[in-house]
């Protein structure tokens, strides 16, 4: 049992998804919902031993499983987690439960397909985080495009087709180049797709630079980094609430995770050499996209742009090459997972009642929905990086790390403390405070039990991580330190 935890974490959601799909038409919608809930809870329960049984004293892969999968290519079914990927697997399994609950009443059309798509995607994402074989990773990494394409395209808003195509083709473009890099690495590593072998494979500077660019495109599109971020606002605006939550909380993390698992350890010399490029792009994302967010009139777009800015912190932290920066980036990833999920759920709550995402349609919400307004306040503060919320921890660590390297990096990054507060709180003010202008707002009701539960759980996570992040940083510590030491060594032959 214990040696197959990761397989269970990957395959239980997928199997549950297939089962949900088998319930067929909307006549069995209730059955599909309950099956999906049970499947996602089961997926979370089997993931818990990963946290309880995790040894924080080593950077070696844990819960490893290995079996021959395609011997003709020397491809193995090789799973394992370390301090970097384990929290992400948990975050994903946890978010899946939230998404299933969030779509409980909202989705009335093709319920089984909706739930199944999320469950299958959850399993695939877990697989991507846990895969230690290049091809296995690629299969999970690409496979998740299929359910996400359908989620955006089938249940999305008016412009959904454009968003779905843009999202799919952008990500595919990056990952196909990465595939060529993988095949090249296979021969350089003497016929192996093993990621840990790749970490040790010496590579010349030209090869490293080309591969760096391939990885940058593949993962940069997914993160997404400026200037290839444009698919994200489109996809978010058109996706249903659950789709937005998964997109923001999880799929973006797969890109950032790719930097740590692939780019930095496999091509360390090129990464150091070209770090300025990533840092520049990250700072543009932080500073410029923050201003773009300020100008949005659509709440979902606003949060989408704020996601781009926040993920800029993650990539900035990674390319500072110090422990504070990496840990800060990773904490920021987890924190952003909670905060962005919560904010998209908040917008979902409002959208379900008023069917509008435009800021100008709201105003004076606090009169009708005081409980909701309180929760929304907390999450908005976390998004702005208020101390004692999870948003503060990661941003502060990255800014400190940047100050160690270069004052101006820290200076530009710190502008987010102003712009972030400005766009989030200004939106909050316009939506929640003031007089009720729109008569429809009069008719809005406060949170129901299901929504209250979602908000409360997320609020707890945001506060816990903000007040006491040590359990999370402890898990990461050894893995981060050892990986940094590895990246510091040259791989030039």
């Amino acid at each position: 049992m214990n040696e197959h935890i990761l397989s269970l974490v990957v395959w239980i959601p997928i199997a549950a998804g297939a089962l949900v799909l088998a319930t067929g038409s909307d006549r069995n919608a209730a059955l599909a919902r309950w099956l999906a809930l049970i499947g996602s809870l089961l997926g979370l329960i089997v993931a818990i031993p990963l946290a309880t049984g995790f040894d924080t004293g080593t950077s070696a892969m844990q819960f490893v499983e290995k079996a021959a999968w395609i011997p003709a290519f020397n491809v193995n079914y090789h799973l394992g987690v370390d301090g970097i990927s384990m929290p992400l697997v948990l975050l994903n399994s946890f978010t899946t439960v939230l998404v299933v609950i969030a779509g409980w009443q909202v989705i009335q059309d093709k319920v089984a397909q909706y739930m199944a798509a999320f469950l299958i995607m959850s399993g695939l994402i877990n697989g991507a985080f846990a895969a230690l074989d290049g091809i296995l990773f690629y299969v999970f990494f690409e496979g998740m495009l299929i359910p996400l394409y359908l989620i955006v395209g089938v249940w999305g808003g008016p412009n959904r087709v454009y968003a779905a195509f843009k999202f799919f083709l952008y990500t595919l473009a990056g990952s196909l180049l990465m595939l060529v890099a993988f095949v090249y690495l296979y021969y350089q590593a003497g016929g192996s797709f093993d990621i840990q072998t790749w970490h040790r494979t010496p590579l010349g500077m030209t090869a490293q630079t080309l591969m760096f660019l391939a990885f940058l495109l593949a993962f940069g599109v997914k993160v997404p980094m400026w200037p290839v971020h444009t698919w994200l606002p489109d996809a978010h605006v058109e996706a249903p609430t659950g789709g937005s939550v998964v997109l923001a909380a999880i799929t973006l993390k797969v890109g950032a995770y790719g930097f740590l698992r692939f780019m930095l350890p496999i091509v360390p010399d090129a990464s150091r050499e070209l770090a300025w490029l990533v840092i520049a792009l990250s700072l543009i994302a932080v500073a410029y996209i923050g201003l773009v967010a300020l100008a949005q009139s659509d709440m979902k777009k606003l949060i989408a742009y704020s996601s781009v800015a926040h993920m800029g912190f993650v990539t900035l932290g990674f390319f500072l090459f110090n422990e504070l920066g990496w840990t800060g980036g990773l904490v920021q990833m987890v924190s952003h997972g909670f905060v962005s999920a919560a904010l998209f759920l908040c917008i979902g709550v409002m959208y379900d009642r008023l069917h509008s995402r435009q800021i100008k349609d709201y105003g004076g919400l606090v009169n009708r929905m005081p409980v909701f307004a309180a929760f929304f306040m907390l999450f908005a503060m976390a998004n702005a990086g208020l101390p004692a919320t999870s948003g503060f921890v990661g941003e502060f660590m990255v800014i400190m790390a940047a100050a160690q390297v270069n004052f101006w990096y820290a200076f530009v990054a710190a502008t987010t403390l102003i712009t972030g507060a400005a766009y989030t709180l200004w939106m909050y003010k316009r939506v929640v405070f003031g007089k009720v202008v729109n008569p429809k707002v009069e008719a809005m009701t406060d949170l129901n039990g299901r929504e209250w539960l979602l908000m409360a759980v997320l609020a707890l996570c945001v506060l816990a991580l903000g007040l006491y992040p040590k359990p999370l940083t402890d898990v990461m510590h050894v893995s981060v330190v050892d990986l940094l030491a590895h990246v510091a060594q040259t791989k030039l032959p």
Partner: protein
Amino acid sequence: MSLTSFAPALPEIFVLVMVSSILLIDAALGEKRRYVAYGLSLLTLIGAALLTLRDFSSMPVLTLGGLFVDDPLSDVLKLFLYLATAAVLVYSRDYLRQRGLYRGEFFVLALFALLGMMVMVSASHFLTLYLGLELLSLSLYAMVALQRDSSVATEAAMKYFVLGALASGMLLYGMSMIYGVTGSLSLGGIAQNLADGTDLRIPLVFGIVFIVAGLAFKLGAVPFHMWVPDVYHGAPTAMTLFIGSAPKIAAFAFVVRILGQGLESQVTEWRDMLVILAVLSMALGNFAAIAQSNLKRMFAYSTISHMGFMLLGILAGTQNGYGGAMFYVIVYALMSLGGFGMILLLSRAGFEADRLEDFKGLNRRNPWLAFVMLLLMFSMAGIPPTVGFYAKLAVLQAVVEIGYVWLAVAAVVFSLVGAFYYLRVVKLMYFDAPADAEPVAAAADTRLLMSANGLAVLALGILPQPLMAVCVQAIGASF
């Protein structure tokens, strides 16, 4: 020549005897009992498969004076030829019946074409290669023209015939030059002669150019692709289904036998030609497919690009490359059967479901068939976890192995372009409202076969090893 020397060709002899009997029996039984011909044809395929399996050879056996070879490569490919032909018969039955094409000639021609392909796959001599090719081609010309009263089909058949004959001429011309250089028509003899070296370089290179051009015609590779869209579009869909599946497998064998076995030592000469063909095919096929509104034409252009991908494996000139190309072509036949089969399944009397808009809202009309089509489309686009991804991976690996990384990059860029039009089919099925409210009326056995076809694409994607191993071993034992 003793009787035992015929033993390796037993499946071919069996098919020949059966197809001749079907011709007579069907003529005697008439229209009412056409199912006899149908059943007998399927029995023929099963019988041939059993004979092939019984005499499965683990190493090459040359027979009939060196004209014919029975090796693992031919045995494996023959099994897939039977499978593809059987699927064609099942998929197209109702379609042909509704259009008055359900005639004895169809079965006879299909089986003769199969016989031609079997000979091609097992040929080890220019003469047998050519005989097999012509038997296949003549049967296909007639099949396309079977719908006599359709001017589009007749036109397609005419084009197919004229251009096919031209290609055969080129091939023959090339073969005669190679014969002039080496003094041999058997592949083994040619390889032997060329390995010893020759000072007749110019006739040799000319011969190779003509042969490659002829092969490119038959494969439908750019710039020899002009016939493909018109024939695919003009022919009755059942015939397109046949042309698009099994003959591609035979064509693969044809190319690998001539280039890989006969002209093996000249790999540096023909590799560059194939690089050009492959890049042009992938580029034109994928870009032109975007502009199509007819699904059969779209698949025709997609075939062109897939053949370009398959050429990537062959041009590597390594065992890995041939194995990858073999895997690719088998997978392609599987996907192509599913794609055209779906058009047949959704068609009904007086209605051809061959336009893109006919797939609108399929997810509402029939979620299961939509899901199967989704798998097929993603597989053609090469997205994991479907088998199409491993096919692409196998050929990409082969070109990177010989150091052509730029070619691999070009290939993935074109496959990105290709992803667009496959995604569009998925978009029509899932995102749009149905334009056609008629329920899908297809017989239970065709539905079952279609489900198996779609699930095979997924199952082979999750566990590609068995098929991959078969291909690698077959190539390894035959070269």
